[in-house]
């Protein structure tokens, strides 16, 4: 609180030149853009998201339209021409003559889509549970936290694996499995943030004003709990994408009709041993780029949003 107030008191001494006003958001943007590494991560991430969104426009061929595939072109190394001589397979082809570059664009779509959907759903669930625990306190709180602790003592991959073993394959099922594996992180983060915020004066003031509990929780408590949650959510998107890829690689995640990056890597696995590296390697590079880009952004977000490190 004191730190928040400080800049306005000392504002005249280092007031920004021109008509810039030092709002918290501008300060956040300024801090964030200061790191070259984080900006690189953000740029890479935007590029990957664009590739995913524009996959049908960018891809040289539709990798899942069987009429466009030619078995003669199967397992060609990167840079080969197709049999008709009309296009170049820049990243090679897989065992069905599919252009890997196009397959990666479409795979990015599925990987990012599943990761974001699972994160949003887990965030919503964790938010509700965590806020409930912090707001009600007492027995509700200790009950919820006992469940959270119990779940967190098991690795996420094990929980997801068990659920998929019981539920079977499918996009909806893998999202359920990822949510089940991750909601507890959010619940714990929200609860601890909310417990700190709850004791502050503005919440007391809000309840003195006679505001309804719903309004206090959602309009006053929630916005102030967001910064740590944003950091956790960013890290968890990367974790969700990696987990989905792992599960798909193991043959438990997505069905063959929804080829995410993990499934593409899994398809090329058998050819890796005979030296045809490109079928697994390039989807893996795309997966890696996605995870590293998100982590770079998340890492710097953590520094920027952490009040203890704020100048």
């Amino acid at each position: 609180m004191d730190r928040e107030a400080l800049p306005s008191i000392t504002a005249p001494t280092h007031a920004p030149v021109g008509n810039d006003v030092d709002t918290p958001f501008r300060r956040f943007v300024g801090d964030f853009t200061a790191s070259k590494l984080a900006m690189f991560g953000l740029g890479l991430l935007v590029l990957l998201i664009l590739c995913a969104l524009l996959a049908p426009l960018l891809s040289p061929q539709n990798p899942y339209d069987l009429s466009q595939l030619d078995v003669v072109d199967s397992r060609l190394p990167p840079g080969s021409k197709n049999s008709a001589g009309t296009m170049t397979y820049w990243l090679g082809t897989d065992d069905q003559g599919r252009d890997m570059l196009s397959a990666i664009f479409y795979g990015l779509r599925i990987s990012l889509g599943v990761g974001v959907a699972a994160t949003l759903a887990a965030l919503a669930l964790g938010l509700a549970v965590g806020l409930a625990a912090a707001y009600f306190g007492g027995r509700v709180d200790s009950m919820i936290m006992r469940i959270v602790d119990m779940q967190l003592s098991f690795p996420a991959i094990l929980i997801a694996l068990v659920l998929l073993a019981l539920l079977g394959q499918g996009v909806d099922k893998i999202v359920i499995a990822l949510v089940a594996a991750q909601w507890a992180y959010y619940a714990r983060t929200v609860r601890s943030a909310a417990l700190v915020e709850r004791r502050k004066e503005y919440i007391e003031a809000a309840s003195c004003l006679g505001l309804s509990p719903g309004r206090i929780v959602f309009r006053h408590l929630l916005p102030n709990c967001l910064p740590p949650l944003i950091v956790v959510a960013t890290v968890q998107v990367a974790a969700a994408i990696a987990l989905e890829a792992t599960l798909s690689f193991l043959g438990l995640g997505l069905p063959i009709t929804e080829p995410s990056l993990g499934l593409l890597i899994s398809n090329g696995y058998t050819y890796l041993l005979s030296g045809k590296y490109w079928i697994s390697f390039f989807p893996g590079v795309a997966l890696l780029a996605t995870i590293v880009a998100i982590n770079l952004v998340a890492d710097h977000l953590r520094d920027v949003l952490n009040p203890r490190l704020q100048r």
Partner: protein
Amino acid sequence: MLVYIVRRILQSLVVLLVMSLLVFVAVYAIGNPVDIMINPQADQADRDAAIHALGLDKPLWEQYGLFLQHAVTGNFGKSFAYNVSAIEVIFERMPATLELATAAMVIGIVLGIPLGLWAGLKPDSASGKSIMTLSILGFSLPTFWVGLMLIMTFSVWLGWLPSSGRGPTTELLGVPVSFLTWEGAKYLILPATNLALFNLALIIRLTRAGTREALMQDYVKFARAKGLSNTRVVGVHVLKNILIPIVTVIGLQFGSVIAFAIVTESVFAWPGMGKLIIDSINVLDRPVIVAYLMIIVALFILINLVVDLLYSALDPRVRLADA
């Protein structure tokens, strides 16, 4: 202390009971237990006999009692794929997984603590920074992808190490192990390295953070003022004080190493429990899946219990806080 131990053990038993109830509900109440526990290829007479033997004609609460009773005696039915008791199939694979997990832990500790110390002592040097970058990569790269790259580099391109399987084993106290002969150890190196990476990254971070904190403490300044050599200050005074959190985390991580062995074993075709569970899921060998779940749940609860007890022995404040 005794009261704490007893209470902690009772808590673990409650958690075990809750988890067994969850597994029971998942397997028996959601799915059709007749389909789940009895081989679909069995004929009608076999099915009836099996339904009776498993007690599936009894009311649900009685079935849960039977399930518990069977679980305690290790009876989870016969594996469809191997036609022997499911628990036997798992116990047969367990040494391979335990060896892999132990080797991974050893690699993590032996490399992680010195690297972490170095990075903590020289946080601004190029070497310190590259160690930290390495640890970030260890955290964020998916295990299976690193495994594939290890195979691609060391098996396919360089041809130094075998890419899959366990190779020859020798008996040590009646347990088959790989690491005693070079022929066997060759098969262990790649999977163990792969499995070690996450823990290596974690141990580097913990050690580095602990070292940086310890260096600012008065006892380190005092040790230096006494004129002790740098080796002694770091090797004895600093190291001793940062070990407690590291030991705790290593203990807790052993469970997740066994869980992550599922991925590594699948990549390297290492014949352990993790590969077994994936194979079993793929062929719907449900008795093995149920048995694996119960064993892994029991294992995790046991690890948590041991770590908690150890921690309370090392740091009495933990016990007081819980009382």
